[in-house]
């Protein structure tokens, strides 16, 4: 049984809510429009090949960065404060990929009036391959318990 994160009592080893999207020109073009990111290799297969991706056009790393944040909101809710997110774009997001954000709590630290939750995250493809390893720190106001600190 999966041990999902309880925002009221996060524990090391608990996992984020899975957050998935199928990515293709529909999602990439919308992201290009809002982020003003009209690079040819995100839109044109020939340009994608010229950039070294034999399959053609490929998705934006920044969109996967957005997906990481979306998974944090889905897991922790509106009142959580995302304080840090770091990621590396390790593999290409190919047309038609179903990407899923996965994450695990690696540390929980209580401070006065809040709890800091550190997570290890990734955006994986349909075969579970890592494309975007990441870390995040989320502050949960009002659930601090000064006697509680955990680390993986």
């Amino acid at each position, binding site marked *: 049984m999966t041990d999902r994160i309880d925002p009221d009592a996060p524990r090391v080893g608990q996992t984020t809510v899975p957050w998935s*999207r199928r990515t293709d020109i*529909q*999602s990439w073009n*919308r*992201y290009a*429009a*809002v*982020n*003003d990111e009209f690079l040819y290799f995100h839109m044109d297969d020939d340009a994608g090949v010229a*950039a*070294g991706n034999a399959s053609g056009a490929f998705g*934006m*790393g*920044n*969109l996967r*960065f*957005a*997906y990481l*944040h*979306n998974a944090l*909101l889905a897991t922790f809710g*509106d*009142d959580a*404060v*995302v*304080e*840090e*997110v*770091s*990621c*590396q*774009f390790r593999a290409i997001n190919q047309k038609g990929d179903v990407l899923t954000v996965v994450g695990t709590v690696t540390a929980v630290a209580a401070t006065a009036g809040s709890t800091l939750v550190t997570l290890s995250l990734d955006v994986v493809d349909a075969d579970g391959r890592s494309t975007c390893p990441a870390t995040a720190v989320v502050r949960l*106001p009002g659930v601090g318990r000064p006697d509680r600190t955990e680390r993986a």
Partner: protein
Amino acid sequence: MPDHGVGPWSAPAYAPAVGLNDIRRWAIATYWPEPPPALYVDPDHAATTRWGGIIAPRDFNPFTWLLDPPPRLPEETAEFHHDRPHVMNGGHADRYGEPIRPGDVIGARRRLRGIEERTTRLGRTRFVTTEQEWTNQAGGLVRLRTNTLIRYAR
């Protein structure tokens, strides 16, 4: 390639005031094809949260569709890296402060953090790291981003 250490901060540049529609469109695009969360699009719901109103997603970028984009650092230009014409985004490390709200005017300054070269599967590869700091109209830190661009010849 000579060593390139930390450079000076650029002059600040400012984005137009953030609009509700900017936030709405960003959220729709990044949640497509599902609807975006109410926090980003529903003022009545957002008013019930700790934020007291709509805020932008942390990954929101107000520096888009500018008529007069701020100049890039010399080390960020293709001309500077003429011997490494291909580029990929290596990743970000973001630290967040104040949320972005409708009406905010975000200022940005940037600087070079460093350039290094390593041999990778792409051949001799150059890693260009920059830092970008965003502040709001009250001077509060909104975001400090460290970004790495990967430049290669193939």
